[in-house]
């Protein structure tokens, strides 16, 4: 599943806000889950959201005007793929919104 969020922050500010927001996202993962973050480039990162035995891999690419990426949906969560995608998208949008 692909996500694409437009923004007007510029690359560096968007990156800063995501760095600040990621620990807050970790606190909101259900069931005492965990968030692993790996920066795969200056403006690219791979997230691994784990909760209740499921792992959702997310890749994000920070651009000047857009944040784009992919969300992998595990088989167990396939029936709620839309909601999982929305969760990731909303979480990312919230991080970008907060100065």
């Amino acid at each position, binding site marked *: 599943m692909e996500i694409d969020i437009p923004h007007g922050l510029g690359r560096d500010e968007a990156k800063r806000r995501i760095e600040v927001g990621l620990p807050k996202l970790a606190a909101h993962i259900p069931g005492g889950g965990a968030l692993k973050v790996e920066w795969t480039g200056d403006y690219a990162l791979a997230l691994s959201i784990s909760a*209740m035995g499921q792992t959702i891999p997310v890749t994000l690419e920070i651009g000047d005007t857009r944040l784009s990426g992919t969300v992998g949906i595990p088989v167990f969560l396939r029936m*709620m793929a839309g909601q999982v995608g929305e969760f990731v998208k909303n979480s990312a949008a919230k991080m970008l919104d907060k100065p």
Partner: protein
Amino acid sequence: MQIYNAPLRDMRFALNELHQDDGFGDLPGHEEFTPDLVDAVLEEAARLCQDVLLPINRSGDEEGCHWAKNPDGTTAVRTPQGFKEAYDQFVGNGWNALVLPPEWGGQGMPEAVGKLVEEMICATNVSFSLYPGLTNGAIYALNSYASDALKAAYLPKMASGEWSGSMCLTEAHCGTDLGLLRTKADPVGDGSFKVNGAKIFISAGEHDLTSNIIHLVLARLPDAPAGVKGISLFLVPKFLPDSADNPGARNGVSCTAIEHKMGIKASATCQMLFEDSVGWLVGEPHRGLEAMFTMMNAERVGVGIQGLGIGEAAYQSAVWYAKDRLQSRSLSGAKFPDKAADPIIVHPDVRRMLMTMRAYNEGCRGLAVWVARALDAEKHGGDEETRAKAKDFVALMTPVVKALFTDLGLESASLAVQTYGGHGFIRESGVEQYMRDARIAMIYEGTNGIQALDLVGRKLGANMGRLLRTFFHPVSAFIEENKGDGPMKPMIDALEKAFGALQLSTATIAQRGLKDPEEAGAAASDYLRLMGLVGMGYCFAKATKIAGFRLFFGTEDKAFYEAKIKTATFFFERILPQAGGHFLAIKAGKGSMMALDAEAF
């Protein structure tokens, strides 16, 4: 009062959410059965069951099947009023052929959908369910073993519902031990046989719903060896088809009596006499039991579904009464002070009964769909490995589904009667019928004791435990995957403990059973229940996990998922602990069970 609204929401959950990761989905050829299409089928089935089959359930029980005079003075078996019309509507709309292969006129729907429709049919009228149920079992056996000529002559009309089927096994002196049967079949020389003998307890043996009845009869050939290895299967029609394949001359088959039964009174259970009746061999000589077991195994899962259906109907009828009946005040203070008393649903012991029934039904439904998905994967899996795994899983779980569901169905029916109190014991309440109707399901198609022996004696050790691994692996993987300190910890801990008891019991039975088969026999029923409890626990734990994710990610159906977690919690706290008791019973061995001399009884 008999109340039933098909639990479509829970059915959709079991079908579309619970088992997505079981490896039995995404089957080639099933792409057209989208969730929307399946929804429409389930909704239409619910309408038919609620509007057509439920209204004739009690009246059918009161009237029962009986003898009636034909215009020509002869007598015939009549089904109760409304059954013929309901049957015509049922087959007219193709419900009998929902899962049958398209080449015989069926719709080829997945078994997973078919089993949910069966649950609705059994919930609303289990007597009625037997007529199409027996026919479908006969179709499976013929499709697998009959010659092309027999298939062509009989299957299209059986699949259309124009003709029905029966399975004729039991004789007065032999039921479980079919090796003793005496019915004979002598070759005539033209490819046909003359069948002679008497059978009892034949469901749908004679009735007025169809223009012909196709009996599958177990009999012995003249050169047959003694025992089960000398039994052959024969197709014996009530009317011999004429040159245009329509019912022609009457065959030498007759119903000599309608059995007087405790329940399922609208199902015509007959004593049948075969006198020089013309029949044809189905499959190989002396290998009739194998062919009959094809039919029987399909029927056993279906019988389990009968238990689930009745359990659901009993639950709903009890819930209605518990909300309606005013008796005493809530222990925590009046909940309806303006009324003379509170509805009995406020009382903890009534809640105990309702929650127990609810948990049984939801747990069994979860298991039923898992097994039904495997039935589909066994036939349509995309690769040999998937098909083989599904086949193993179905073989392992068939006795569990049959015995567990029917035991729990009766228990639910009994709890419904208890919820009604004295009124439950009165026929007009309608719930005592559920108890009487549910009782037979624990007996026919192999008693539940036989199911337990099948599980322990044949399935556990088969192929060095290969069948067992199809159940153990997903359960142990789920436990490993979800261990930790999350919100599911209490459930996972309880499941792990029960699963541990099952593993230890398996090892105990394997070790003792090798030295002394009576030890395996003594452990069998407890072992089957233990496996059923673990299976339901696995389904409830998965359901809780899905519900947790749904609630977190956002859902419009919050109430359903919250209720699912609450029911699961009840199961883990109040029902799954029984696993420990079954383990202790198994561990104790056969000693006290076999200690008394037969003379002391």
